[in-house]
């Protein structure tokens, strides 16, 4: 059974000019122990998906329809307290900027202990010992001495390791990582990614890795979902999606990534820009920019259709034109 199932999820923002649909019928699943990448441009809805799953949508945003099923139970309709019990303990989250994610006035050890005590019944001594253990596990040198240090006393990369420890210390089965490496130096990025992969493997945790960096996805994930304008354009095993994309948007994305091997005069660009939420075209959201659009694309919105080992929301897959 899938650990997480998202069915036809719609997230809306009521504004005075009407209701904006930020996520439009998203469906996907995450298996236990799997790393799912969610990639797309800014504003495509990647972070919103994560926020919706963990129940931290900023008002006035709300789940308008659809279901989120975790471990066989529906979680999108739970009350505040029930959701709180799930957060941290069953579903964890890592955010982008380690500088602002940690309370500057509380030592890292205390923050770890606090998180663990909230969800697990531990004695003070055990909690402290576990805190030190976690710090060691995420690779903080001299953990037992630094356990009561403050966040500002760590470097950026170290801080993000602390954040990872905090997200994992209550032993959740799913972690939503929202751009965990974007704010870090490139050299540190690789370390953090490796760390996350190792921890996930060691503890059997699934990860939903949200990022706009295709390279990270290719390195780390088992499967990837490509999002566009609040919808999923393509989803499938990462190797297949990268090497043989079926959706024209994914194709465009892959073509626009420079590579060390091939030599091209110019990187391919997709003309135009992702439409704003209040200006999404009828039919397929991508049809106005698509070089292969057919008449049907302007009228009907494509569902995720099977295309080999992946699924793509594109009629061309059916027409066999790929």
């Amino acid at each position, binding site marked *: 059974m899938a650990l997480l199932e998202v069915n036809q999820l719609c997230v809306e923002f009521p504004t005075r000019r009407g209701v904006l649909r930020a996520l439009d019928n998203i469906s996907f699943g995450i298996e236990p122990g799997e790393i799912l990448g969610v990639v797309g441009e800014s504003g495509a809805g990647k972070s919103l998906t994560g926020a919706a799953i*963990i129940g*931290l949508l900023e008002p006035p945003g709300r789940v308008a329809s659809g279901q989120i099923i975790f471990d066989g139970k529906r979680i999108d309709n739970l009350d505040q307290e029930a959701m*709180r*019990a*799930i*957060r*941290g*303990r069953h579903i*964890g*989250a890592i*955010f982008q*900027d380690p500088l*602002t*994610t*940690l*309370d*500057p*006035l*509380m030592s890292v050890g205390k923050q770890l202990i*606090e*998180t663990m005590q*909230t*969800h697990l019944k531990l004695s003070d001594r055990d909690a402290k010992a576990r805190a030190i253990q976690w710090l060691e596990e995420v690779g903080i040198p001299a953990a037992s001495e630094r356990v009561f*240090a*403050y966040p*500002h*006393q*760590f*470097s950026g990369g170290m801080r993000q390791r602390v*954040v990872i420890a*905090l*997200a994992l210390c*209550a032993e959740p089965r799913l972690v939503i990582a929202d751009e965990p490496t974007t704010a870090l130096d490139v050299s540190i990025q690789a370390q953090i990614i490796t760390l996350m992969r190792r921890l996930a493997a060691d503890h059997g945790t699934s990860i939903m890795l949200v990022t706009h960096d295709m390279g990270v996805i290719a390195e780390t994930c088992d499967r990837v979902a490509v999002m566009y304008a609040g919808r999923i354009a393509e989803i499938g095993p990462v190797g297949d999606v990268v090497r043989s994309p079926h959706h024209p948007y994914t194709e465009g994305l892959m073509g626009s990534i420079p590579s060390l091997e091939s030599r091209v005069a110019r990187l391919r660009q997709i003309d135009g820009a992702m439409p704003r939420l209040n200006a999404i075209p009828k039919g397929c959201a991508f049809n106005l920019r698509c070089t292969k659009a057919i008449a049907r694309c302007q009228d009907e919105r494509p569902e995720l259709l099977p295309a080999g080992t992946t699924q793509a929301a594109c009629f061309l897959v059916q027409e066999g034109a790929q």
Partner: protein
Amino acid sequence: MFAFILARLLQAIPVLLVVAFISFAMFQFVGDPLVALLGQNFTAEEADRMRHTLGLDQPFLVQYIHFLGRVLQGDFGISYRLARPVGELLAERLPATVELSLTAAVLALLVGVPLGVLTGIKRNALISRAMMVFSLIGVSLPTFLIGILLILFFAVQLGVLPSYGRGDVVHFSHWTTGFLSSSGRQAVILPAITLGMFQMTLILRLVRSEMLEVMRSDFIKFCRARGLTSRAINFNHALSNTLVPVITIVGLQLGMLIAFSIVTETVFQWPGMGLLLVQSIGNADIPVMSAYLLLIAVVFVTINLVVDLLYFAVDPRLRGGGK
């Protein structure tokens, strides 16, 4: 850290010198002190002698240095109006002002901070909105009006609290206190509420707005993402981060207390330094005004320094060891 204190002290000195200069210059431009001291009729000889005694025939800069010297020894000259040393007058009035200000400050903190936290946490509850309206009124009503209204209600209508004066005071060593007599304690209530009202509403609004700001921050989001209880989030994380900037601003607001104590003392005829200042402005009593100016400058510079030190003590980021 000592380097820090030293640096601030060094910064403060030019400020104090400038204020002292203004303080000194006031004497130069104001009428003729000779008239105040010698009366209307005096001979040229008497005038010359007086000038020489007062040192008024010396060059400007020399006079300024002499002035500084006197000031540092606590000699602020003689009040034109009361014919007594200004230093003595100020020392006499100091306890009254200090006790009033302290009472008001404590009141403001004890009421303002908890209410501010409450309205910050329960942002839209009825009581929060009521508090916000009340605090807006408190900020908009001038201090003297609050005093008058309180007098009208409690002293005139109900007759339960005195409307002027300090009540019975107890002297010991150089201090006089009103806290030890029941009439003294009664007398300080209305003035303290009046004086503290502005401060209290300010604290309330400040704490609330800081709290709201903090609640939207990334680290609070992360706390939520970790499933911490509302209680833990509010009191272990949000509160401490709210109070750090609030402390500095509140400390700086102490200055406002001193400023408004002038008004409160006038309304209630409270025998403090503020009342003395108002009376001396009305009478063009320069020595008192100039001494008050200097005193205020010292007080404010000290407050700023103490607040900076407080910041140091409270925020671990400033204590060093950071990258």
